[in-house]
């Protein structure tokens, strides 16, 4: 408990130092950067009335975050629905793994900004294009971790399947799947983090309502304090998502 309190206080000090640096920079170096106080004053309306809808691009931060989260949930679901079976397939078959390894290595480092125009050409609408981009960018950790998990199923467990003469389906549900689950969840956590990174880029380019879209819109409207509000929101939400997935993962490992 004492270390818990200590850590909490220390992190408060860290946040305080950052705010200090921010205030210093906005006051002395970058005059266009709103100070923490100004940011708060101008963002207050959006924070204390988070669900208000005053216009398409003028909505409370809670509502904007919700739009983004729904979009991420869709894209992320798509990513794990494609990524998990793909991971099992590649993990189970060294032949397929060797076949697709170069393809994966090439597709993996492609930025969401590069995928999005392709999505727009393919789907001609911003929403499916955004989902396409999120799924395509965020599925790789799921694929790779699931693959790794399948490959590292201990020989002991495969022997158990052999000597108990389990059917292929039972071997999958009773042995391969539970043995791979912790790896899968590590993949899911990383994928979700990536999906959240991609959402901002996708919304910026497509101009759809959400934290990213709002950020870009306020940049164009020269309301810089709202940009900072969005940045902070993105950080806090991303952190929370990661923590939640981390907790789910820890539970799984303990079980």
């Amino acid at each position, binding site marked *: 408990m004492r270390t818990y309190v200590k850590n909490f206080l220390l992190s408060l000090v860290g946040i305080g130092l950052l705010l200090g640096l921010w205030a210093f920079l906005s006051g002395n170096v970058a005059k266009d950067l709103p100070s923490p106080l100004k940011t708060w004053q101008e963002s207050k309306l959006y924070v204390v009335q988070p669900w208000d809808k005053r216009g398409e691009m003028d909505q409370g931060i809670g509502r904007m975050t919700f739009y983004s989260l729904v979009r991420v949930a869709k894209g992320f679901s798509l990513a794990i629905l494609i990524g998990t079976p793909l991971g099992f397939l590649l993990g189970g078959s060294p032949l397929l793994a060797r076949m697709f390894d170069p393809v994966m290595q090439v597709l993996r480092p492609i930025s969401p900004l590069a995928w999005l125009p392709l999505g727009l050409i393919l789907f001609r609408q911003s929403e499916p294009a955004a989902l396409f981009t999120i799924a395509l960018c965020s599925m790789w950790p799921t694929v790779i971790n699931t693959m790794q998990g399948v490959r590292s199923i201990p020989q002991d*467990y495969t*022997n*158990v399947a*052999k*000597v*108990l003469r389990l*059917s292929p389906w*039972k071997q999958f549900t*009773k042995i391969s799947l539970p043995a791979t689950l912790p790896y899968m969840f590590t993949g899911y956590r990383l994928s979700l983090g990536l999906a959240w990174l991609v959402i901002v880029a996708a919304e910026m380019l497509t101009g759809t309502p959400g934290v990213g879209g709002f950020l870009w819109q306020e940049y164009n409207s020269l309301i810089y304090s709202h940009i900072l509000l969005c940045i902070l929101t993105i950080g806090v939400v991303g952190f929370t998502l990661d923590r939640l997935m981390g907790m789910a993962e820890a539970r799984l490992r303990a079980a």
Partner: protein
Amino acid sequence: MAFIDLREVSKEYGSRRVLANINLAVEEGEFVCIVGASASGKTTLMKIVAGLVAPDSGSITIGGQAVTGFPRTASIVFQNYSLLPWFSALENVRLGVESAFPEWSGVKQKDQAMKYLDLVGLGNAHAKRPGQLSGGMRQRVAIARAFAVEPQVLFLDEPFGALDALTRATVQQELARLCEAQKPKATVLMITNSVDEAILLSDRILALRRRVSGKDAATLSMAAPVTLERPRAADLLMHNEEAVRIRARVTDLLTSGAAKNRAERPGATLAATGAPVEVCSE
């Protein structure tokens, strides 16, 4: 032809010869122990008999049928328990029952699993996961899983190797009890590095060893029948003359003597009863 029958089985890993010309005959209902030092090829031999590893040459039959995969009527206990950590003790045992008796109702399968957990004294711990059980308890679950499928053939691959001495003694007695109680009696092939364990449990002891300076492949080299009455208490090993004699003999065979080995007759089969017979499998 004996129930379990190995003819001229050899195995190499790369250029290393592990087993050479192994002949083995085990009668139905017999409990045979193969004793050997670590890295003598015991586990490889067991895996070959159980159809988990294919030999380079030679034939294996069980009940007259050639062994190609793990036999339907067999079960096995591994040294490292090999329980599935995400299932409870009951679920682990039940998984085996389910695939051995798929025609049974779910209730009957569960009862069967429960019955064998009770037999190894773990009825109360049936809901616990392997991670919550001690090593001895885990191995009991593994033994329950092996017996619950009512096997005709039971393979035991150093089943007590990972247990401390005290736990080892109790679980050994439990295993002996289960084997005695089973009807019809299973044919048991056990691998161990403990001569005492072999004397306590088996009807016949075979020694697996490498000949000259450990460079050659291992061969099975002799049969010592153990005719001691059952149940056999652990202190028997200290006082009983036959036990002492067998131990001296097997230990001697394992530790010494390439010279002795050369004198053995080639091509002899293993005798099930009678005076100790020297057997060689060259």
